[in-house]
Every structure is written in structure tokens, then in C-alpha cells.
């Protein structure tokens, strides 16, 4: 009876939150009058909204569900993905914040490939950037929808409704997501990010304190339990080892400036000068919410090792089991609501850039113009992408796993040299950009599909990123300096 009460409280919190999402979608619908509104939020976001949108985009369902599961599974190793984020955000702002915002306004761009095409004066670069984005989006979106459906299934199982099939939960997730994204576009996403960010900050601090009360001697008890079982697990390198961790550090630090769902937020800010306040908000916000990743993961590892909690059925269950068993149901409901918020806004961001690639960028690169009635086609494309990603998520687990792991690395390796370096370096050529994007896709796909084992668990995405950047620099230095459009050159001089 008590368990049913907890389950209902959690479910009601989530339903309440989904109701808020629908309301935000309807409100945003009234503000979305053009494709610039749909894709770029009218380039009118203030300091707080942009700051929260940037860090909430990084802390997605992967951060909330996958992160604690990884710490439970492999100890401290995955923390290298987290500790790279502050420096990664700095790189994004130092190299891209101003540049991408100015180019977007000057060229009236509504997508990242638009800006890439303007910088390199190349439709091939636009096409390859769109292709990389579309491939990465499919992988990420599938995992987001699957994460949402899996958590929904766990929550409903603890209520009088009982366990629903995964297909039903995917269908519910799809319906809410599509309604939210199609009606509101990116405006709905960025304003949900603010709500999500606030909830996550509060929840992360409360959960962190909840974790310290599990053992009589607080966090030290957790450390001692894990260390007694395996000293390496609680060392900086965890169970994965030094080289694997450092490859993650490289990929997640440098790679964050190539994540289109994050850097497009920088194109939406109202004023360039707002960036000086947006950066600290993003960095501090992300770091505080990442306490969830660390604290839940370590607590669950210690609890299971000590026999106080049964072994988890799967590593992704770490967060949901901890919240349902060790926190107040209202706090659990709050965190689950934040989790759904994270998934919804990140998925919305992906749907947004994916639909822009289909209705705007690829037609532009192939026939030199976008589709007529772009806004209506964008909404149709959003439904189509969400449907395909949901089908992948439900029926092709292997494919989703391959594409999901491939997502971050694909974005990073394909876009960091072209965007992060190329927007700051006049010497960079279109040939170098195109070769870097092709090589990054070939290496990422090749290693994943051919299942090549890399020694010391060095991440394939890190290798692809390293190679694509080196190729980019090498070809540009060997080529004749390109002739840039005068206005692009002027922005690069600012």
C-alpha cells in the first residue's frame, strides 16, 4: 500500500510535468510565426534562458539515466566525461560564442549548416554538415525516446495500472514529444530548459544530501565500501583505466563545441554581449547538476556491494531504483519530472536540427533553394524523424546502440574542425572541411560497424576527432589560402 502510494505520487508528478510541457507547447505555438521562430527562437533569448538552455542540452537523458548507471558499473571512469564539460563549454564560448552569433545574424541563417555554407562558400560543406547532423540525430534521438519509455515503464509498474509493454510506452512518449515539438518548435524547448534547469539544480543538491545520509559516516562510508571491494574503482581512472578515461576527457571536452543542439543555442541569444554572463551560468549549472551523476552512481555501487540493496537488473536502473527506494516520493517525483524535462528538451533540440537538415539544408545544398512553406514542412519532418527514431528505438536495439554511441563522436569529429576551428581561422579551406567531415564519418562508422577493438579502450570518437582535426589543419596549411566573402572576412576580423 505504501509502495502504491509512492508510485502514484511519482506518476502524478510526471503527469503534472507533462501537462506543463503541453501548456508550454501551446504557448509557444502562438509565438511561432516563421521558420526563424521555429528554428532559432527568433534570435531573442535572454541571458538566463540561453545559459540554462546550453547546460540543459548537455545534461540530457544520458546524463540522468546513463550517468549514474555508468558510475555504478565502472566506478569513477565516466566522471572524465563530466569533468571535461566546464573546459568544453569554455572552448565553445571562447571560439564560437560571438562568431557564430554574428555570422547567423549577418547571413540570416536558421541552421548550423547555413553558417557553414556561408563561411566556406560551399554547398558540399553544407550537405556534408547536414548529413553528419542527421546521422547523429537519429542515434541520439532513438536513445532519448528509449530512455523516456523505459523510465515511464518503471514508474507505471509501481502503480495500480501495472506494467505496460515497452511499445506502449514508446507510443506514449512519441505522442507527447511530437505534440510538444511540432507545436512549439525550439521556443518550447528553450523555455522548458529553464524549468528543467531550475528543477535539476534543486533536485541535484537535495539528492546529494540524501546520499550523504545513507551511511552513518556519510560519504566516507560509501568510499570505504567501494575501496574495500576494489581500490581502482574509486581511483580517478575507475575500472576502465587511464588511457580510456583520457580519451573520454579529450572527446567530451573538445567535442562539446561540435554538438549542434548546444551550439545552435548560442545563435539564438539576443545580444552578443550577454555571452559574458551566459558562460558562468552554463558552467556552474552543469557542474551542480552533474552531482546527480556522481552521487547516485557511487551510492548504488556501495549499497549493492554491501548487500543492503539487491543487484540491479540493468545498469540504467541505478537512478530510478535509488530514487524510488531511498528518497522521499516527492523528491523522486521532482527528479523524474526533471528527467522527463531533460529528455523532452534535448529530443526537441535534436528534432529541430534534424528537421532543419531535411527541409532547409539538404534542399539548399542540392537545388539551391529551400522548400516552399518551410514551416509546415518542418513540422511534417519533425513527425517523420520522431516516428523513424521511435521505430528504431523499439525494434532495432542493436542499431540504436551503435548509433547512440556514435552520436556524440559523430558530431564532435565532423563539426569541431569545421566550425570551432574554421570559424576562427581564415586559412581553413572548403576542401579541408569536406575531407575532415568525410574522414570523421568513415572512421566513426568503420570502427563501429566493423567492431574493431581498440587497445586500452580508447574511444573511437576520440580517434575520429583527432584524425579529422589533424587532416583539417594539414590540408589547410598545404592549400592556397581561400578567398572569403568580404562580409564573412569582416566578421572574422571582429
Amino acid at each position: 500500500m505504501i509502495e502504491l502510494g509512492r508510485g502514484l505520487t511519482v506518476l502524478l508528478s510526471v503527469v503534472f510535468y507533462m501537462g506543463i510541457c503541453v501548456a508550454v507547447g501551446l504557448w509557444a505555438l502562438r509565438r511561432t510565426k516563421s521558420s526563424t521562430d521555429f528554428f532559432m527562437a527568433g534570435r531573442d533569448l535572454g541571458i538566463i534562458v540561453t545559459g540554462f538552455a546550453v547546460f540543459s542540452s548537455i545534461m540530457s537523458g544520458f546524463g540522468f539515466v546513463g550517468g549514474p548507471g555508468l558510475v555504478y558499473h565502472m566506478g569513477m571512469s565516466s566522471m572524465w566525461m563530466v569533468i571535461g564539460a566546464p573546459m568544453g563549454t569554455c572552448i565553445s564560448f571562447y571560439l564560437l560564442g560571438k562568431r557564430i552569433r554574428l555570422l547567423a545574424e549577418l547571413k540570416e541563417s536558421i541552421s548550423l549548416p547555413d553558417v557553414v555554407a556561408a563561411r566556406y562558400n560551399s554547398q558540399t560543406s553544407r550537405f556534408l554538415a547536414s548529413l553528419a547532423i542527421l546521422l547523429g540525430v537519429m542515434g541520439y534521438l532513438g536513445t532519448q525516446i528509449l530512455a523516456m519509455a523505459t523510465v515511464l515503464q518503471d514508474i507505471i509498474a509501481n502503480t495500480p495500472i501495472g506494467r505496460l509493454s515497452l511499445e506502449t510506452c514508446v507510443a506514449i512518449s512519441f505522442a507527447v514529444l511530437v505534440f510538444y515539438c511540432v507545436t512549439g518548435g525550439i521556443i518550447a524547448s528553450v523555455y522548458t530548459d529553464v524549468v528543467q534547469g531550475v528543477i535539476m539544480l534543486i533536485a541535484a543538491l537535495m539528492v546529494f544530501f540524501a546520499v550523504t545520509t545513507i551511511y552513518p559516516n556519510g560519504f566516507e562510508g560509501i568510499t570505504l565500501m567501494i575501496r574495500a571491494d576494489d581500490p581502482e574503482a574509486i581511483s580517478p581512472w575507475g575500472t576502465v583505466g587511464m588511457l580510456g578515461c583520457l580519451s573520454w576527457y579529450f572527446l567530451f571536452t573538445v567535442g562539446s563545441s561540435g554538438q549542434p543542439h548546444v551550439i545552435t543555442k548560442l545563435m539564438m541569444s539576443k545580444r552578443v554581449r550577454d555571452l559574458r554572463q551566459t558562460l558562468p551560468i552554463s558552467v556552474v549549472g552543469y557542474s551542480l547538476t552533474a552531482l546527480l551523476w556522481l552521487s547516485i552512481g557511487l551510492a548504488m555501487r556501495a549499497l549493492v556491494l554491501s548487500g543492503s540493496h539487491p543487484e540491479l537488473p540493468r545498469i540504467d536502473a541505478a537512478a530510478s531504483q535509488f530514487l524510488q527506494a531511498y528518497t522521499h516520493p516527492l523528491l523522486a517525483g521532482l527528479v523524474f519530472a526533471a528527467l522527463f524535462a531533460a529528455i523532452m528538451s534535448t529530443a526537441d533540440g535534436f528534432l529541430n536540427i534534424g528537421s532543419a537538415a531535411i527541409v532547409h539544408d539538404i534542399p539548399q545544398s542540392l537545388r539551391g533553394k529551400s522548400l516552399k512553406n518551410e514551416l509546415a514542412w518542418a513540422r511534417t519532418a519533425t513527425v517523420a524523424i520522431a516516428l523513424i527514431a521511435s521505430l528504431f528505438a523499439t525494434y532495432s536495439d542493436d542499431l540504436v546502440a551503435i548509433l547512440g554511441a556514435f552520436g556524440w563522436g559523430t558530431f564532435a569529429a565532423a563539426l569541431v574542425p569545421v566550425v570551432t576551428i574554421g570559424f576562427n581561422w581564415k586559412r581553413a579551406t572548403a576542401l579541408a572541411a569536406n575531407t575532415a567531415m568525410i574522414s570523421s564519418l568513415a572512421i566513426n562508422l568503420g570502427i563501429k560497424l566493423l567492431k574493431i577493438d581498440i587497445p586500452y579502450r580508447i574511444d573511437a570518437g576520440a580517434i575520429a576527432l583527432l584524425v579529422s582535426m589533424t587532416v583539417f589543419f594539414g590540408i589547410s596549411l598545404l592549400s592556397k589560402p581561400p578567398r572569403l566573402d568580404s562580409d564573412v572576412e569582416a566578421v572574422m576580423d571582429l
Partner: protein
Amino acid sequence: MGNVESKVSSLLTWILFGLLILLCLLIGSVFFLEEPSESQGYRHWEKETMRQGGTGERHSKILWLGTALGILQLLFFVSCLAFGVLRQRGFPQGQWWTFLVGGFLYVLIFLFMIFTYWDYVNDPSELFLSLPVPTAIMLLVLWPFPLYFVLLYSLRFDDWVFGKKDLSRFHKLASSNRKPPAEN
């Protein structure tokens, strides 16, 4: 002055390229090393959903390589930041030291973590703020250290990133291109 800036910019470009080449060589060399069987950890003896790392001895042959890899990465990160500032403005006189100091401290923290890790491998009993010492350095010093660069960005924004002169130059550029821009 413009000529000097262009020389410095060119130097920084070659530094970035050089660091990338060195990183490629280090990662490439890993493929020729003999890998110990437990280098990537192994399944927990009792809990199927967990992995264990074993002893720190698994790192004994690659510690130098990992340390070099870490240092080069940190230098690459800081050089990227300098690249973002330098390309368009050059450094105001006497401001180079802020990045040099930042890079130096960043590497120093990383090295301190490596040294304490090796102590931890030999004697894991010591804790600092409820965590093993190297883990505490990683979480409490290395993780928040980029706040130094956040602070630099916010405090030096007008000089390094986008000042009032830049704003008026951009307004002129935008208005010559098309309709008047939004407020920036």
C-alpha cells in the same frame, strides 16, 4: 602591430597543429604496445552488472604515456582558448601571462593527481575529504579549475571578445549588407 599579431597567430596555429600531431603519435603508439589482460578491467567476481579494475599495477607500463597524453591535451585545450581570443584581436600587451599561468597551473594539478595516484596504488588508506587523495584532486581541483578561464572571459570580455567598437563595426557591416540589425 598587425604584423606582430599575424606572426603570433601563425605561431599559435602551428602550435595547435604540432600538438595534434604529437597526440596522434602517442595514440598511434598504443597500437604497438603489449596490452595486459586486465588493462580495461574485468567483470566483478560476484555482481554481474559491475566491473572491477584490479590493481594499479596495470598502469605501470603506460603511466608515462598516459601522463604525456594528459599534459598534451591540457596544453591543447588552453591553446584553443588562446586561439579563440587571439585570432581577431591579438592580446593586449602583457596579457599573455594569464593563459601561460592558467596552462601551467592546469598541468601542475594534473601532475599532482598522477603523483598522488601512484602513492595511492602503493597505500590506498589515506583519505582527503572522504575521498582517496587523487580522486579528491580530480573532483575538487581539476574539475572546477576551468572557472579560472570563465572568470577571464567574463572580466576581459570587452577587451578580448566584443567591445563597443566591435559592436558599432558590426552594425555598420550589417546595415551595409541588409536591413538594420537587432540590438547587440
